[in-house]
């Protein structure tokens, strides 16, 4: 808006009841993103039509790509008599318009509150002929908006789809060879392309799930395709139990029941549960894991990327050493960014998220062991709480790292915000930011240094031209 944020007088009051400027969205949104990452998949929200519209517009503002989400469009009557009829009609209409390979259904606060029995409803639908030859596969996930965040919805959807689609017994020939499952968490389209490239370079087929690298970052086309190409193939989702191992990215996920833990418990697929590979150390762990599970040596090109990155770290150290940073956003992205900051000599002072996994503090501690001063870690907080904390504790950051949602907070503090993660709707190309790997770290590092240099140059009365 045209006016700067108004100065609010602070009174010490630690535990606010309401959420004031949230650092999280609701669970079904994350689930729809997962469903969009399946080949031929159409996301479907069981609830009010407004949910689909709001989530579409939100995801679209980040990806700048079309994102169709269907809905059962509840009316007052459906809240009383149940939404079975709407669901059936909705599934039929999506099938006739889109001819999808799969419809991925997520519930909402409305349908969870009235207690819709999705298993029963879908069973009935299938029994009544929804299982004809070209009928799409149906998967569903419970995502009541009053529980968890968009990231929880995302991870729950990954697990639900894997659980419901994992096939026992014989597999198509393409999946009798050795292959990997990679569950990357909520990362960018560019990150997904990176992970597929790594698997390729290690010479092992990989099922990356979800995979919206093409469905939400696709090409122009003269003839429009309602369902864009790309996405994790349905066959691959049936074959996940036959994988040699699952690699799951995200330290805060380790305590949770996830797709990887399910496959390990049920099908004895070893689960490698590691951090999001942001920065050198976390990326080293990732490549080590890849070497171990594939038995193949580290491809030369990544070793070269690592070499260049370390060289840059040394060259850039003087600009970033001791700089204080606030990191916020989705939990695993926060952990990754904190790890990167800690290893380049910056001081993360506040690591905060709207998510509340219970594992953020522990994860941050693990990636900041060599920091003298431990950062403040705040789970389940909103932006006003962060701002109050920053003011009361006189955190005085030099810069911030996080999503577009922190722009006003950064502006009020008068510090630059380096945009990473989700959502990014006030900069261009959020879906193409590479966060992962040595090359991702290189890009982030360059951006951090350049942001600090620009600040220094612009605020200097002398006028530097060599920095």
């Amino acid at each position, binding site marked *: *808006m*045209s*006016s*700067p944020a*108004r100065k609010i007088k602070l*009174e010490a009051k630690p535990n*606010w009841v*309401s*959420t*004031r*400027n*949230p650092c*999280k969205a*609701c669970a079904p*949104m994350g689930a729809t993103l997962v469903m969009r990452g399946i080949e031929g998949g159409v996301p*479907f929200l069981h*609830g*009010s*039509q*407004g*949910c689909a*519209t*709001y989530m*579409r*517009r*939100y995801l*679209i*503002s980040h990806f*700048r*790509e*079309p994102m169709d989400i269907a*809905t*059962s*469009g*509840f*009316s*007052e009557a459906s*809240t009383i008599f149940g939404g079975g009829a*709407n*669901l059936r009609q*909705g599934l*039929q*209409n*999506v099938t*006739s*318009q*889109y001819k999808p390979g799969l419809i991925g259904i997520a519930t*909402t*606060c*409305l349908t969870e*509150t*009235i207690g819709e029995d999705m298993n029963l409803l879908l069973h009935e639908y299938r029994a009544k002929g929804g299982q004809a030859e070209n009928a799409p596969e149906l998967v569903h996930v419970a995502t009541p*908006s*009053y529980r968890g965040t968009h990231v929880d919805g995302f991870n729950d959807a990954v697990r639900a789809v894997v659980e419901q689609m994992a096939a026992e017994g014989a597999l198509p020939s393409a999946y009798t060879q050795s292959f990997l499952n990679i569950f990357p968490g909520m990362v960018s389209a560019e990150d997904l392309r990176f992970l597929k490239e790594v698997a390729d370079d290690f010479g092992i087929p990989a099922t990356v799930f979800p995979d919206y690298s093409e469905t939400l970052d*696709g090409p*122009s*086309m*003269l003839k*429009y395709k309602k369902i864009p190409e790309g996405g994790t193939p349905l066959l691959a989702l049936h074959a996940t139990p036959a994988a040699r191992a699952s690699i799951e990215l995200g330290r805060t996920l380790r305590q949770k029941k996830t797709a990887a833990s399910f496959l390990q418990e049920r099908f004895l697929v070893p689960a490698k549960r590691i951090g999001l590979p942001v920065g050198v150390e976390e990326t080293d762990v990732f490549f080590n894991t890849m070497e171990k599970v594939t038995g193949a040596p580290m491809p030369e090109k990544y070793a070269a990327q690592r070499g260049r990155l370390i060289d840059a770290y040394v060259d850039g150290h003087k600009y970033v050493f001791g700089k204080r940073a606030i990191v916020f956003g989705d939990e695993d992205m926060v952990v990754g960014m904190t790890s990167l900051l800690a290893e380049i000599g910056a001081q993360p002072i506040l690591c905060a998220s709207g998510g509340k996994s219970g594992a953020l503090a522990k994860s941050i501690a693990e990636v900041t062991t060599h920091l003298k001063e431990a950062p403040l870690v705040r789970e389940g907080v909103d932006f*006003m709480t962060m701002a109050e904390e920053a003011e009361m504790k006189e955190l005085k950051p030099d810069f911030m790292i996080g999503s577009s949602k922190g722009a006003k907070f950064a502006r009020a503090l008068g510090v630059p915000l380096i945009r990473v993660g989700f959502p990014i709707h006030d900069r261009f190309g959020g879906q193409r930011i590479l966060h992962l790997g040595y090359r991702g770290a290189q890009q982030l590092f360059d951006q951090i240094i350049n942001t600090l240099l620009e600040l220094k140059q612009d605020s200097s009365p002398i006028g530097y031209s060599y920095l």
Partner: protein
Amino acid sequence: MSIDPRVVKDELIQIYPKKLRQKRSEQIVVTQKGEGGSVPEIKANVRTSPGIITQRGCTYAGCKGVVIGPSRDILSITHGPIGCAFYSWLTRRNQTRPATLEDPNYINYCLSTDMQEENIVFGGEKKLKAAIREAAQLFKPKAIALFSTCPVGLIGDDVHAVARELKEELGINIFGFSCEGYRGVSQSAGHHIANNGVFKNVVGLNETPHPEKFKVNVLGEYNIGGDGFVIEELLTRCGIKQISTFSGNSTYDTMANAHTADLNLIMCHRSINYVAEMMEKRFGIPWMKINFIGADATAKSLRRLGEYFEDDALKARIEEVIAEEQEKVSGIREAVKARCTGKTAMLFVGGSRAHHYQQLFKDIGMKVLAAGYEFGHRDDYEGRKVLPTVKVDADSKNIEEIDVVPDPVRFRPRRTAERIEQMEAMTEMEFRDYVGMMPEMDDDTLVIDDLSQHESDRLLEMYRPDIFCAGIKEKFGVQKMGIPCKQLHSYDYGGPYAGFRGAINFYKDIDRMVNMKYASFLTPPWAAQEKEAQQAAAD
């Protein structure tokens, strides 16, 4: 381009099952003016069938996001799980301009009760009350509005009772809205609910008098991209005092003071006509549909104000302003027209813009191939004369109709019924009327209500218009095909487009968009060469 719109209509709906096909065939019409300028009947404001990907929003979005949200010092608290508040946080581009930095502006804030599982099970009223108390303590607002999301109605939280109780306790105005998302056909239901609430709880509470001679309210203008600023500036230059807007750049006090105006001007008929009607019944303020989109439309609207106030000095000032501004517009319009003539446009947006913006395209020689509203009703298409024949369905019955009677003290008809009649007879003015979109459209043009994603995809394939006007949800699919999409909800973060200055902005933006060359890049050279080679071989 000679595509028969009737064939297109059949093509759009042919994949639907029979019942749905029948319903959609009534929502898609081809314009054809009959005797006395009659237009075909269209089915509108009916529920979108499940599984059809609509661009419509929900009741909450219309109430909180559209009507109440733009008011900068009414503090909004969304009662519900976090999503609804998050998705409606600064997503509309209603600009606001507080007089000083110290003046409150709550638009930047997003407050939610962020309901958790235990609130769903045990009720959320206690949490809502606590949220109101802390918001009151933190912001010290004059007024707090509470918005219900889907689960609130289901678990039986009574936001109105909470509002009454806390209003008493805190001594500030607090009011609630039962705008649960599932309640209506679209955001339109939310507009109506917001109109009712603001009329019951805000209008008439501020008696500050104004010495100015000519006083109006501008209703249904949300100051997207600064349109409202342009309109207020124009009115001020003409010597007309804008008492309030509903609700772009508005404050609680100006809305509470609206009943002191002598005329209500309506921009977006769909979202605000209810308040205009109620204000006329209670306070005697007539209302008039005007349109500040397009230079000629703006001139016409300003002249009507001169006629209404029957003041020669005012009329003279209005003519001066029009002459001064039209001169600036005409040069640019002609230059742009030379580059845009013959190009084609489609508009699918809102409840008024798909109508208002057609004129801007005509100004620069462009042809409108198809248009439609996202959440309009029959009267927005066919004109208010059809109101007596509009069917009232269960969804409409759901929304309270307030019984309004003249205020015993403050009812003061600004013009007698006879005078209004005379004015209507003598001038082009019509009071309490909106002619609708279709009577002003060329024959044989497609009008489609609640265009679905599937229909929009097919329409683009068949026509490949030079520009498609819609919102962010459609934008990137359209642009994938190399066709530029102009967002008429957010103006693509540009604008303003209202008034004379806005028309110039719009002409320039459209010129840039319809003349861009990206479409020629869609086919890469190797594919083009291959095609040529195939062609040569075939020859």
